[in-house]
């Protein structure tokens, strides 16, 4: 596992997203209400750029007409064909077992603990870190 420092937390506020290239792979990063998520920026269907997709919630129904809406902002719709992916797991909604994209662990870490990394950090700042 490699840890990559991608940005100071102060520059990656809630409600924003960005795309980074780590080890040659494009990874789409999202800050949803202070929680960080990362997905390989490539839809398993035809390679659509997930980083450009709409963030929505999880729509479910136990019976016709019985809609429920939960986890706002944590479901990503591919901009090309609308396939939905769970930001937390990378699994598709329609066939989670067979259709999924890779999810990466993303977290905020204090600069104090990142001094051994290869990028310069300031000890008084927190940083967004992606594990690959």
């Amino acid at each position, binding site marked *: 596992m490699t840890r990559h420092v991608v940005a100071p937390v102060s520059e990656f506020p809630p409600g924003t997203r960005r795309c980074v290239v780590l080890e040659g792979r494009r990874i789409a990063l999202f800050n949803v209400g202070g929680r960080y998520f990362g997905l390989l920026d490539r839809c398993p269907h035809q390679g659509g750029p997930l980083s450009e997709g709409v963030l929505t919630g999880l*729509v*479910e129904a136990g*019976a016709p007409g*019985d*809609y429920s809406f939960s986890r706002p902002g944590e479901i990503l719709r591919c901009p090309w064909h*609308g*396939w939905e992916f769970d930001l937390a797991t990378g699994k598709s909604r*329609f*066939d989670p077992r067979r259709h999924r994209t890779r999810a990466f662990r993303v977290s905020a870490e204090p600069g104090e603990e990142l001094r051994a990394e290869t990028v310069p950090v300031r000890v008084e700042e927190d940083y967004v870190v992606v594990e690959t």
Partner: protein
Amino acid sequence: MTVLPPGAIDCDLHPAPPSVSALMPYLEPHWADAAAHRGLHELETIAWPPNAPLSCRPDWRDGDARPGSDPARLISDAVDGFGTRYAILNCLYGAPMLYSEDMAAGFARALNDWLKAEWLDRDPRLRASITVPPHAPGLAAEEIERAAEDRRFVQVLLPVMGETPPGRRINWPVYAAAERAGLPVAFHAGSAYRHPPTPVGWPSYLAEDYAAQATAFQAALTSLIAEGVFQKFPDLTVVFAESGVAWLPAHLWRLAKYWRGLRMEVPWVDRSPEEIVRERVRFTIQPFDAPEEPDAVARLLEHLGSDDMLLFATDYPHWQFDGMGALPEGLPADLVRRIAVDNPLSTYPRLREGKP
């Protein structure tokens, strides 16, 4: 020639009243009186014009008699002819589609009672579907409850083209009543002619009308899935009769494709439409609409992805095939057995009860 195994069950045959007057003894007094005083003429639909070649196989035709109107002929041509253990009668007479809901329901009751007395009582191998007014779901549900007491009624019959898309909630009382009675609901080729039978408008020719039936079945299947009928009624089986079969894989592929991108519109559809159809929908095998080459048939069956979906049927007296060739060529024997015996028995629980 693909040979039928013993115990085969014919899931689609069409009896017809020889004329509307045959129903008079079975109509309630008010409707019999109204029919007489109004000078009601024949109440056939225009879907199967009696003299059209499609409407009756030449060797099953009996002069000018309405095709399928003679029980003795149906029994000797189809039941004895194919050696079937059971034959399910789907009466396509148009009277239950009359605009008056009450009159339509009255004729539906008369048709069901006529079927019992003139057909089911005549031969223990005969079974029938319950005819209902398709545009009056409440009255249809009442008739299902009434007629289902006779366990020789094994199914509920609706035209594939009714007044509203079949999945709409207004139609749910029919499915609830069928599910309660343990009866599958069959959608049969045909229309109540509330709307043009093609999506682009009224056709000029019979060939157009009949070919377009396949698109009606596609729309009906999509409606049933999208509106959540299979989730709402988990014990309901749907049968598509005289629907053709070959269109199904391509349509399901397309439907599943759009469902993947639009799933959130219909979140109760929690499985692929293909899975739902394989589990819950059955198709009678005449017409089959596949090329005659066994290889092509084998590929189509592979695309269907299930051996449980097809039901043997002759579609008597309609002219879909000649001689004894009711089944496509090149089917393996075990699949023939499933189509002719096992699948019908699984689809129609009442056929497993033996003597009613």
